């Protein structure tokens, strides 16, 4: 559950982050997993997946948008909601300062961006969590934006696709951050009643209060390869039971084997998989209407001609 589980082993990962080598023009990056030096352009061409070891680098929301959604189809909702330090929380640093520097670092106002976008011309409501913003932790703002996203979906009936990446609840907001777990989960029960599909894409890492609420409640759970998905963080477990954890413990493939998720999908295939799943989940009468409009690879469309 602790964000600490993450920082010492692997620093927050982004090819544009602090893992650049001091080679001119930042043309090369080192893979965090296998330490291989990769040509940045090759990495970008491969959806930020290591060509050597298949490690899926963490993405910025912008990168995620460019890999998944149709060009220029993304429209952000609620961009201006911001956190406030209502508990007057100050540890080694003031929470307000932490927020300000996270905003500066990520050029986003919060740890999640929400909006509508298109996947192969199908409109979806989407949320993208940003681990670079205070470990993607869920406080009032993440809770509110995710809840609004579900409420929008109840109204507009478009499927919801959320990309999770979060260390859990934001402790600087105390008990109110815990309540966001209940708030977002409650909104999902209304979404279920309205029969609107909800797909979660579990990205590295999805732990604690985020996994134990809206992340694990998707109708379909897709994970990126190697993503850490857990309730308790590996370090907390190790300290509690005082034994070594098994190889691959709490990774996407481990959850798949234990029946906890539907599939593990390579980032290259993710857009196509999402597109297919959405097409197959949308109620039939709606689907027929939609299918008239879908271009390209859909076989059923060809039949209808």
């Amino acid at each position: 559950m602790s964000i600490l589980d993450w920082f010492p082993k692997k620093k927050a990962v982004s090819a544009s982050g602090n893992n650049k080598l001091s080679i001119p023009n930042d043309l090369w990056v080192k893979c965090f997993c296998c330490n291989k030096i990769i040509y940045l352009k090759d990495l970008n061409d491969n959806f930020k997946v290591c060509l050597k070891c298949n490690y899926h680098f963490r993405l910025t929301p912008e990168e995620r948008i460019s890999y998944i959604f149709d060009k220029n189809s993304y429209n952000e909702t609620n961009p201006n909601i911001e956190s406030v330090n209502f508990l007057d929380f100050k540890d080694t640093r003031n929470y307000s300062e932490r927020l300000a520097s996270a905003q500066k670092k990520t050029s986003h106002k919060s740890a999640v961006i929400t909006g509508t976008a298109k996947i192969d011309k199908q409109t979806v409501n989407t949320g993208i969590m940003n681990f670079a913003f205070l470990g993607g932790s869920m406080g009032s703002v993440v809770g509110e934006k995710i809840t609004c996203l579900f409420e929008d979906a109840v109204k507009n009936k478009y499927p919801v696709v959320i990309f999770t990446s979060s260390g859990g609840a934001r402790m600087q907001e105390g008990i109110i951050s815990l309540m966001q777990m209940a708030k977002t989960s409650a909104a999902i029960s209304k979404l279920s009643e309205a029969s609107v599909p909800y797909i979660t894409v579990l990205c590295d890492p999805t732990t604690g209060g985020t996994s134990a609420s809206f992340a694990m409640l998707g109708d379909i759970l897709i994970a990126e390869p190697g993503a850490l998905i857990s309730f308790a963080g590996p370090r907390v477990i190790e300290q509690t039971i005082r034994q070594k954890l098994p190889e691959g413990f709490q990774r996407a493939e481990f959850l798949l084997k234990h029946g906890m998720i539907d599939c593990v999908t390579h980032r290259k295939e993710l857009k196509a998989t999402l597109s297919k799943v959405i097409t197959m989940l949308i109620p039939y009468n709606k689907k027929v209407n939609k299918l008239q409009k879908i271009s390209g690879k859909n076989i059923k469309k060809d039949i209808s001609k």
Partner: protein
Amino acid sequence: MKVLDFENKLLSLYDKINQLKALSEEGSIDLSKEIARIEQRAELLKKNIYSRLTPQQIIQISRHQNRPDSLSLINLIFDDFVELHGDRLYGDDRALIGGLAQIQQERVVVIGHQKGHDTRSNIDRNFGMPNPEGYRKALRLMKLAEKFNLPVITFIDTPGAFPGIEAEERGQAEAIARNLKEMSALSVPIISFIIGEGGSGGALGIGVANKLYMLEYSIYSVITPEGCASILFRDAKKSDIAAELLKITAKDITELNVADDIVKEPLGGAHHNWEVTASNIKSFILSDLQKYKKIKNNKVIIEERYNKFRNLGQFSN
């Protein structure tokens, strides 16, 4: 009984009182005035100590090994109780108990975390830390309650959901998440009491309630103060600072509108008098059961609970 450090002074006064009482019983000297005087002093001191407890001291009371546990409170509060076991999927979690209960003419389903009072019973109860099957048993019982239109009472008392290998394999996160979603839409009222420790998601997993009450010296926290301190200060020993920052006392949680009210404890804490504690909880249960009995439309109950959580959150827009 284990004596808490801040109770020491008080305890020495009680020792003195007992000595004097013994003396006056065997001798001919009348010490009743002296005894009364010290008793008065002790009462004053007790009030003084308990009116200005620090969060760290409240944590100590909330975790006291003689604090009343769920099953004991159930037996003191309800006229009848039948424990029901198992999640029908994997096993029976002894850290989370539940069953059918009756209080006067009212029938309810009751669910609670279960701690022990010594090492042996605590190991048996996994220190009140449920595995996924505990949360799934709770959900099964809540669905049973819904089917037979019985209100649900829950007693929260856990350091957190168990962080273990098997718990993860069997989907601890999924089990808790599922409960949050299902509880939010349950068509019968849910009334929850934090009787000791309200530890994070493990507490919330049976705590999505229409009404949440906290015992006076119970706590509710998103993370243990020890865990918070080890992350923020890299030092678990600074948990007293974290406990202040996190705002975890019944008073704080009520001010933040997360808890609806505080249930008084006997002076010195619930561990000094289980019967009084139980009877204080009982009056809350009875009055709420009467109130909810009048609501015939189940949608009102669901909406009340939904709106309560929907409105929790502070931000600027």
